[in-house]
């Protein structure tokens, strides 16, 4: 694979310096941000596609593990395959060229990302209480692609938080010393989920215009290699 031929990533992502900086940050901090992530034209295409997507509201009323989100799931292979849709193009890239780019950055051997891919529309009233994905066999990397047209302060809520552990306070369960991943226009957070398995989104109390997409990757195992 020639990582310099990638068409969807921002040109700066191809440079050895940027890739080296990202890799160093992931190994040192368990987290790195690529900004800008996509070419501007492709980011705008994705934003338009997300604005036209049918997001489904999902909720759980629970004092400690509740959520209220708007999500849109898709699989780039269906409908068979969706060739001209930007989200499908992005999904296919994360299964091929961008997967290689991610391996080059992290030095990890990664399997194709978990399906379906998930996009979320951030909205007033949305929140995700502390949770961990697949605690028995957590994915190795989590990617958050932010497409927020305007930033907002953390006091409004809606900022992703990741952490190594949870803690219980008088206010309930929360994250222990969280790392905050602020919404931004066209930014990609790469998170080591073995270092930061816990995730939370505090209640968003204002109307915003923002989406984000999540991708989760597992390391290639010996059984994968045998196949």
């Amino acid at each position: 694979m020639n990582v310099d031929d990638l068409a969807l990533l921002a040109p700066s992502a191809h440079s050895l310096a940027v890739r080296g900086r990202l890799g160093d940050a992931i190994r040192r901090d368990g987290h790195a941000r690529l900004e800008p992530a996509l070419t501007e034209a492709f980011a705008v295409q994705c934003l338009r596609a997300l604005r036209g997507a049918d997001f489904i509201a999902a909720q759980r009323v629970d004092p400690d593990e509740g959520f209220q989100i708007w999500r849109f799931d898709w699989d780039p292979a269906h409908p068979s395959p969706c060739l001209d849709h930007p989200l499908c193009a992005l999904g296919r890239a994360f299964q091929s060229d961008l997967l290689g780019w991610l391996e080059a950055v992290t030095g990890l051997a990664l399997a194709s990302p978990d399906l379906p891919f998930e996009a979320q529309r951030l909205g007033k009233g949305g929140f995700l209480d502390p949770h961990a994905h697949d605690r028995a066999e957590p994915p190795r990397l989590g990617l958050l692609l932010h497409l927020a047209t305007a930033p907002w302060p953390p006091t409004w809520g809606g900022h992703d938080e990741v952490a190594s552990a949870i803690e219980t306070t008088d206010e309930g369960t929360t994250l222990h010393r969280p790392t905050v991943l602020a919404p931004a226009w066209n930014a990609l957070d790469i998170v080591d989920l073995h270092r930061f398995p816990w995730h939370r989104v505090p209640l968003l109390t204002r109307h915003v215009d923002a989406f984000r997409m999540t991708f989760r990757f597992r390391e290639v195992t010996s059984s994968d290699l045998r196949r």
Partner: protein
Amino acid sequence: MRTLAPRSAEQLAALRRTWAESRRVRLSDALVPDLARDLALSATARPFHYFERHVNEVRALFWRQTVAWDTAPSEFAPIAALRHLIEVDLPALASAITGQALRAVQDQGVAFDLYTRGSYLDTHTDQGAERLIAYVIGLTEDAWPAEDGGHLEFLAPDESTVLDRIPPGFGTIDLFCIYPLVRPHRVPILTRQVTRLSVNGWLTGELVAPGERP
């Protein structure tokens, strides 16, 4: 069938004075004993549906349970009392307090609105054909400070300055004028793990000028 707690002539006169001064009034312990409890228990025993609306710039997000008058199941017996309250007793009481000839909106049923963490109702005015008065029948047993949201707020015309604030109540009836005194109001986003349950609606009528006979 009696749904409202009895009130003396003095109490009614005091409510009229409060209405004349502020065009809004709260009736505490408004319902006959046990009716609020029975309504809350009956409603919470049945499923609520996610309710999200986006009309022009007004957005709302909460949970709603709609019960049709003619299909209410037998175990939902308090619904008959609620219908009598909404269609008969409440318009009569509101007419006596406000001096307007008020009648209920002819609906096919009733909606219970439930707010949980993350629920809200953006600023609006309730303007609608012949609507004069809005009512809130409070069925909320939890209590919490206003800074956690979920209280009904009346705003100045700038739609940001809070002029007045009504906490959720249990067994309460709040009446407030929506015409001719137009007041923007909202329920700020509820940030705490509590529940706010109420029945909300409007009373309609022909506007009567001071001195005219309703």
